[in-house]
């Protein structure tokens, strides 16, 4: 085992990743190599330092309650998802009724053409809205 291999094994030992057979070869190398012994000592100090310094922070006791409260407040702020559809249908019906009364064509013709256009536009906007949502997500 050379120094480069030994130092990789030393680093791996801090990941709990050195097998028993490798441990013997590593110990033999360390007993003969001052550089790698120093490397081991320094890495052990570093490991201790990191264990001492990186302390798990505590999640506050009201974490889950805060998450639920945020979700609830978002719900109350949001308009219902069906509102645009209802507004569109109501607008289309009102427009068709107005057109049937005001335009100088037969009322059935205005309603048929208007309803066809309204349905096509509704399908188109539904498709575009779905595509847009998917691209955002």
């Amino acid at each position, binding site marked *: 085992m050379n120094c480069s291999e030994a130092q*990789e094994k030393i*680093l*791996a030992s*801090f*990941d*709990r*990743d050195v097998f028993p057979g490798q441990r013997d070869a590593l110990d033999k190398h360390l007993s003969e190599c001052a550089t790698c012994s120093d*490397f081991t000592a*320094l*890495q052990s*100090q*570093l*490991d201790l*330092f*990191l*264990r*001492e*310094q*990186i*302390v*798990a*922070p*505590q*999640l*506050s006791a009201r*974490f*889950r309650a*805060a*998450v639920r409260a*945020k*979700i609830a407040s*978002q719900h109350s702020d949001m308009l219902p998802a069906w509102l645009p559809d209802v507004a569109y249908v109501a607008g289309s019906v009102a427009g068709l009724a107005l057109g049937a009364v005001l335009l100088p064509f037969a009322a059935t013709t205005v309603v048929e053409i208007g309803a066809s256009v309204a349905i096509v536009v509704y399908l188109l906007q539904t498709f575009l809205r779905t595509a847009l949502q998917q691209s955002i*997500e």
Partner: protein
Amino acid sequence: MADEDVQRLLCDHHYALAFELILQRYEKKVFYLAYSILKESANAEDVAQDVFVKLWQVLPLYDGRAAVSTWLYTISRNTALSALRAQSYRKTLPFEECDPPAVDPDAGLRRLQLKEVLPRLSQIEQEIVTLFYLQECSVEDVAGMLDVPAGTVKSHLHRARRRLAELMRS
């Protein structure tokens, strides 16, 4: 497969129940992941809350292709990195929860503070070193949280250890 119960609930459109299970199971890990990036517990907790709010919003879109945990960790990391960019004007990001290191005049390492040396590592190395020690030294857990192979975690960890040792010796 992990989280089979959650996946079953999602398939049956029981989103509230699935969400509660995910919240109980992953709140700590999401918080740690945010903490490893933001290095400040109050901000990390705010970000963790935002992550779960986002999760609730997108839960009906879960298609089962990736593990729930992978999906959640991706949202967590992206949200924390966005928060980090938003507060990047701040010059120091203290590990406020840490106790001061024990004073030992003979040990040069201990005179240093983590907040002095950790920023010298790359962003991913900082995250990996922090998560490794927060996750009780489990390379596999860290790999799962960052959605990278365990070998990648090890190589970053080894590079970071060498770099930190050099910094401390100098």
